[in-house]
């Protein structure tokens, strides 16, 4: 199971022109400032998922490029390339396979002032936290997204247009950040998005390590729909415990997820054998408000409990394992997932 955003976008990077353009940008920025060399980052992973007895395999590559230009501008982009192998249906032996190559986002950021950054291009919809903060494979604690991940992310998970974002207030005791966007409707194969608008505001209390936020967006094409979201993150100081949660409500469905993780440093630190283990638990529930299905959520009320045990290897490598039990009126199922992810981060070219 993949983060929901990966399944929407059309093929882009397959065009030689796109590749040449990317290389041209890299070459143009060859002699950047000492600490502002363009970078390549991302994750390489191999995932397996067994759902109701059927096992599928997914090797995938999710690169990210950051290229600063001058003191205020940044071009950033993320893409995904994956191969999916799944058993043939019926009595047939063997596996079917398919490719998927897609640009997740491509945006230019202009830091206008200490409080305002102007974003243009195609960007991740800032609704709650999963879509733009937790969906990269090297960040998420589970292979798959929560049940409600599609709610509020406006079908493609990305918008094409403009966004203002930044830190509105930053004090030692609290900080407030915001995002406000408008997206136009785009139907071409490169950037698909809906006409929409919305935003998010978050309050963070550093002493309590508590973040709360509210999100809203509205679909401005077809059947107009409003989406409301709220999130709460809490990470007690000097403990390995983390709690993340979201609630989202749309016109036709609503739901929530709560995730807890724990890493102990009590047995020789986080880099000890024990400290590298990370148990994870996530509870998901989605509820249909009517039978109109336009939001990507399950057709019926669904509950799912995800139990994970991750191991953080040296050199930015993680092993992710999980068992999920899903309950719904259409049938209960077990989902077993294992995977390994390597996160890389290096300059785009050699230098002094």
């Amino acid at each position, binding site marked *: 199971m993949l983060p929901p955003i990966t399944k929407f976008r059309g093929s882009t990077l397959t065009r030689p022109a796109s590749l040449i353009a990317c290389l041209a940008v890299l070459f143009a920025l060859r002699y950047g400032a000492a600490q502002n060399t363009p970078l390549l980052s991302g994750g390489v992973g191999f995932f397996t998922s067994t759902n109701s007895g059927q096992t599928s395999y997914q090797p995938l590559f999710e690169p990210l490029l950051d290229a600063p230009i001058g003191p205020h501008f940044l071009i950033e982009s993320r893409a995904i390339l994956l191969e999916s192998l799944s058993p043939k249906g019926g009595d047939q032996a063997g596996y079917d396979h398919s490719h998927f190559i897609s640009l997740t986002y491509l945006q230019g950021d202009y830091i206008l002032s200490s409080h305002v950054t102007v974003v243009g291009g195609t960007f991740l919809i800032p609704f709650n936290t999963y879509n733009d903060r937790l969906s990269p494979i090297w960040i998420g604690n589970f292979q798959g997204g929560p049940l409600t991940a599609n709610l509020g992310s406006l079908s493609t998970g990305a918008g094409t247009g403009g966004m203002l974002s930044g830190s509105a207030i*930053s004090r030692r005791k609290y900080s407030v950040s915001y995002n406000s966007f408008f997206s136009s409707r785009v139907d071409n194969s490169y950037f698909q998005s809906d006409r929409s608008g919305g935003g998010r505001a978050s309050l963070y209390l550093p002493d309590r390590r508590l973040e709360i936020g509210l999100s809203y967006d509205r679909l401005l094409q077809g059947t107009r729909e409003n989406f409301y979201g709220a999130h709460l*993150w809490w990470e007690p100081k000097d403990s390995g415990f983390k709690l993340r949660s979201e609630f989202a409500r749309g016109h036709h469905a609503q739901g929530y997820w709560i995730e*807890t993780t724990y890493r102990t440093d009590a047995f020789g630190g986080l880099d000890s054998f024990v400290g590298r283990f990370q148990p994870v638990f996530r509870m998901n529930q989605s509820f249909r408000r009517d039978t109109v299905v336009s939001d990507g959520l399950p057709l019926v009320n669904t509950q799912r409990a995800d139990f994970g045990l991750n191991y953080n290897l040296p050199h*930015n490598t993680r092993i992710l394992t999980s068992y999920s039990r899903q309950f719904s009126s259409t049938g209960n199922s077990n989902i077993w997932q294992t995977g390994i992810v390597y996160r890389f981060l290096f300059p785009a070219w050699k230098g002094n």
Partner: protein
Amino acid sequence: MNSKYLLPVFVALASAAFLQAVAQSNPPAAQKTNGPAVAQVSQQQDEGTRIFQQNCSRCHNTPQGFSPRISGTILRHMRVRASLSKHDEEVLLRFFNP
């Protein structure tokens, strides 16, 4: 396992994990310094550590080492993605390049 038991089980697990976390929490040890310059560097490192833990570690694990040539690029990226303030960006740049 019936679905009606999931929420109580979750609450019990979360409570147990939280109680254990609180029980094991320890205040960071004060660092000994030998002079004003060392003290200033140590203070900057503490400030950088605090901002790093409060902002970067909220979402992801700490990357194990990266070239100082990309530290500015990383921070510009995170300034946009995590809505870092200008002050936090400057402190973290000193933290990455002491």
